[in-house]
């Protein structure tokens, strides 16, 4: 069971109060994009064994969205941060690197 902190209302609760909504930081490709871009935007998701950034919603609480960085293998939650970001903030990256020295945000992006 994951213990998740909601940065919007400041509540830390277990995962049944929240709902996961898949991979975070997707770039939208809409009208005018190529078929390949649109397909990858719609269907192609990362499925890493390790660090993963996700969108979560505080379903049974304040109802707001936010981002969570967690490990899909150990289920460790590194931290949560505002939904109004395009990339993970430095503070979260440092927290992940503290626990996973081999992990880097650059390798993640490629």
């Amino acid at each position, binding site marked *: 069971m994951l213990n998740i902190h909601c940065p*919007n209302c400041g509540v830390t609760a*277990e995962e049944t109060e929240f709902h996961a909504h898949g991979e975070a930081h997707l770039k939208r490709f809409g009208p005018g994009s190529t078929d390949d871009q649109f397909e990858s935007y719609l269907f192609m998701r990362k499925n890493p064994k390790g660090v993963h950034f996700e969108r979560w919603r505080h379903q049974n609480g304040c109802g707001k969205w936010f981002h969570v960085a967690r490990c899909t293998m150990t289920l460790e939650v590194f931290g949560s941060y505002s939904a109004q970001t395009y990339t993970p903030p430095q503070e979260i990256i440092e927290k992940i690197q503290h626990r996973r020295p081999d992990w880097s945000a650059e390798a993640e992006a490629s």
Partner: protein
Amino acid sequence: MSEPVTALKGASDTSGIAVVTELGPTGMITLRGDLSAKPVIKAAVTASGVTMPEKNHCATEGTGGLAWMSPDELLILCAYEEVHQRLADMQSRLAKIHALAVNVSDARALFQVNGPKAREVLAKLAPVDLAPDHFTPGMFRRSRIAQVPAAFWMPDAQSVRIICFRSVAQYVFDVLNVAAQDGSEVGYFNA
């Protein structure tokens, strides 16, 4: 005027370790807007008759109350008969502000669990740390009761009040009674 009727017509169960009661019709107004804006705070305080609560807290006094629901949402409690007047007054105060106020009195049900074991009954159903030093009277928490969303607070150390959607009122009443059934004390919070 037609007579207001609550979801369970004030059902009550006194057979268990705590008394579960559906409270009578209560005026509830949802207010959404920028909670740091002075006109919004002023409208909420005037309509509820209590002071502005902190984040994750509520302020209640008699039938009036003000609860912090989310970073942009407040719940105003008042007497059922006064809700239309208070809403109209609020809407005129907020006419020039980007805010939304809606009467949700008939969309909700309000329960009270009363007795020394009230805290324990709630702790069986909600995934929230309800230890006496963690969840204190005055705090307000939106979470779930078994399978449905609910919000609750403790007016005093012996009672819990729970707000849920009217459509799940029977479910919440039943599940509270199961958690409060006779002989089901856990005694976890007694130490």
